[in-house]
């Protein structure tokens, strides 16, 4: 565990104890240890989850390589792991990582889920002050565009055509949206 992680856990534990004190609940030393231990366990689970996400990232090829080259190195998961990483995993989902889409409909479904996830990530980023209203509006317009293109892809697929170009466009849109979200701090 790094010093930063210890600081975070200690601060969280302090906040919990303070909050309990505000409600008139006295926390003895043993309980404080339990709180710190519990927060540490939660942190461990989060880290394990992030590591799992990272292992999924490694299954990607072109998107990840391009991302690493652009960002100048591998994104190290950490407690500072932020929204851009979520978008990466969302892109991984879109690309079929974890459960590879085997049919055009599955690819379209994965794209919808990715659009939803990126929108959620952007909403959180705006709420927490990582992006401003203008950036949020741009992301919203891009994602709306992706949804409309996916509708076209569905029509093409239903008619027995090849919607690969449309899906490729959606992928490009999602990658461009990624650039608008906050960068991941490197440890």
């Amino acid at each position, binding site marked *: 565990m790094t010093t*930063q992680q210890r*600081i*975070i856990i200690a*601060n*969280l534990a302090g906040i919990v104890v303070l909050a309990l004190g505000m409600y008139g609940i006295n926390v003895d030393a043993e309980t404080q240890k339990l709180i710190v231990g519990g927060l540490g366990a939660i942190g461990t689970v*989060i880290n394990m*989850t*992030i590591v799992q*996400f990272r292992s999924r990232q490694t299954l990607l090829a072109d998107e990840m390589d391009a991302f690493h080259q652009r960002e100048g190195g591998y994104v190290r998961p950490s*407690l*500072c*792991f*932020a*929204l851009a*990483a*979520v978008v990466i*995993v*969302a892109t991984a*989902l879109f690309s079929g990582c*974890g*459960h590879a*889409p085997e*049919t055009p*409909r*599955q690819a*379209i*479904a*994965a794209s*919808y*889920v990715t*659009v*939803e*996830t990126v*929108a*959620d*990530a*952007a*909403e*959180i*980023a*705006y709420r*927490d002050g*990582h992006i401003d209203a203008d950036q*949020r*509006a741009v*992301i*919203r317009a891009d*994602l*709306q565009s992706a*949804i409309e293109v*996916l*509708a076209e892809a*569905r029509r093409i697929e*239903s008619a027995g055509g090849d919607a690969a170009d449309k899906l490729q466009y959606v992928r490009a849109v999602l990658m461009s949206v990624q650039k608008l979200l906050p960068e991941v*701090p490197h440890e």
Partner: protein
Amino acid sequence: MSSAADAALLVARLITALDAAIRLANNSAKYRALVAKAVADGRDLTADELDSLQWDAQAAVDRLGD
């Protein structure tokens, strides 16, 4: 920036990342469940299932404009 401010910033990022990760996990699970059910039934995804995903995606995008 002071250590306290650094720690506060880290906590804020942790909360942000955790929130985003939870939503991602939920969305991913939804997709996996749909595909798994379709595969188990020996079929492709239905139009209704795609409609449902489309509505969810549209709702998420609409929330961005609130």
